[in-house]
């Protein structure tokens, strides 16, 4: 039941993205759609396998521990209804992607930027033949690299990154993971309690 709802939500998000892509493409080759931004001189003449496309790196290669197998898509924690999807808001600057081909070029594939929304990250690959999009494919993104290793656009202004510091001194108490009665004796809280014992009768 729940999974079905989520599947529908994901489908809705994907559909929105496709509409965005199609809508942009409909404006014609004179105004390249956003996903095709960043033209480069190197235009591949043939199909480009996704793995060889420089525009499709994982957003955080080192942050994809193998111990997060993500057996199923992580459910949205928000009610899908009424929640605006941010499919157009790419979390990063426009990626360097192969330019829109000249009308005479054969079919080739263009990979768009990774776009974050409430359901994770989505990346779309289109196949362009001449000046027409002949195929649109949503690339599968492993959960560990799409969702858990980067903050959503929503969280970003609410959280700030810091370096881990060591501070001390002048504390009344310490919050930490639950210590055992044994480790309490060596804990900072234990030291605080011991020190305070001398201050009161």
């Amino acid at each position, binding site marked *: *039941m*729940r999974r079905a709802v989520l599947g529908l939500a994901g489908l809705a998000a994907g559909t929105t993205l496709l509409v965005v892509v199609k809508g942009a493409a409909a404006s014609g080759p004179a105004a390249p759609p956003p996903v095709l931004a960043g033209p480069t001189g190197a235009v591949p003449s043939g199909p480009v396998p996704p793995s060889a496309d420089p525009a499709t*790196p*994982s*957003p955080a290669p080192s*942050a994809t*521990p193998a111990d*997060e197998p993500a057996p*199923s898509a*992580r*459910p949205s924690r*928000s*009610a899908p209804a009424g*929640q605006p999807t*941010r499919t157009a*808001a790419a979390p*990063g*600057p426009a990626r360097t992607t192969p330019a829109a081909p000249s009308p005479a070029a054969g079919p080739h594939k263009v990979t768009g930027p990774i776009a974050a929304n409430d359901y994770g*990250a989505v990346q779309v690959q289109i196949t362009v033949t001449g000046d027409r999009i002949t195929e649109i494919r949503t690339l599968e993104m492993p959960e560990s690299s799409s*969702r*858990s*290793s*980067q*903050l*959503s*656009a*929503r*969280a*970003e*202004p*609410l*959280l*700030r*990154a*810091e370096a*881990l510091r*060591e*501070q*001390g001194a002048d*504390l*009344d*108490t*310490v*919050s*930490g*993971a*639950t*210590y055992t*009665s044994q*480790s*309490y004796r*060596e*804990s*900072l809280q234990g030291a*605080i*309690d011991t020190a305070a014992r*001398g*201050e*009161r*009768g």
Partner: protein
Amino acid sequence: MGVRPGRRLRPGLRRVEHVMGTAVSLDLADPLRPSTLDELADGVFAWLRLVDARFSTYRDDSEVSRLDRGTLSLPDASADLRAVLERCAELWGETDGYFDAYATGHLDPSGYVKGWAVQVASDRLLAAGAANHCLNAGGDVRVRGHASSGRPWRIGVRHPWNATKVAWVLAGTDLAVATSGVYERGHHVVDPRTGRPARGLRSVTVVGADLGVADAYATAAVAMGRSGPDWLAGRAGHECAVVADDATCLRSARLPVVGDGGPIDGESASGESASGELIGGGSKGGAADGGGSAGGAADGAGSGGTRAGRGADTPFRGSTHDRYRTTL
């Protein structure tokens, strides 16, 4: 009288007792009569021992153990246990299932109970006229009012690799501070989705108004792994401080931090566009660099609406949690 020379004899009472499998430190800062302070402290520890007797998973005769074995039926359980199970079911829904009193396959509401018990004790102290106190049960802290020194309570957040240091210093007059981490008892938090120990985050501290909820949120975030901070950022009325396995740190902009530079001005957070990337460690050059901040700022209002809508969610979804349905 046991007072070291040069030290001021402070009013109030301090007491440490071992209960619930950990050390509990109580600091009553109100200048009440010694007999009154003793009675209040006695009441706190008697309550915590009662909670331990009812909720401990290490005691075969606790209500939790008997309910789990099926030798106690829910209608015969205490009102406290029924209330706790109801709250655990709600928290299961609020956390997308990541706070799960059945994560280990057996009933174990410990991730909520300790914080809840301390919160109840603190509420009772306040009602009894002890408005200035600090109660710390094994690292879960509830403070109210001021310390006997006259300043707001100062709470360190333990450094996850150095037991004698703290990573942050918080201060406040009405705070619940709960920390869940893997450095004391190993990877004991189970990801209920996989049934395996949660990885990715070494320490999660949640600050809020209710210690039971803060405790459950911290546990849930550890179970989520690296998506935990993102989830915590959407919890209204809660702040967080997170240290990942690779020592990267994230904290909410409004965390009541003292220390270098004094209290953080929550309004100053909006200009920082690069803050979101570090949880991924080596994600430099990845998609999180800056570009999403404008859209993210605009989404703040939307997430509020999402939270409001979540209140109507029923926690009784999904097949694996029919257990909640049957026990309630």
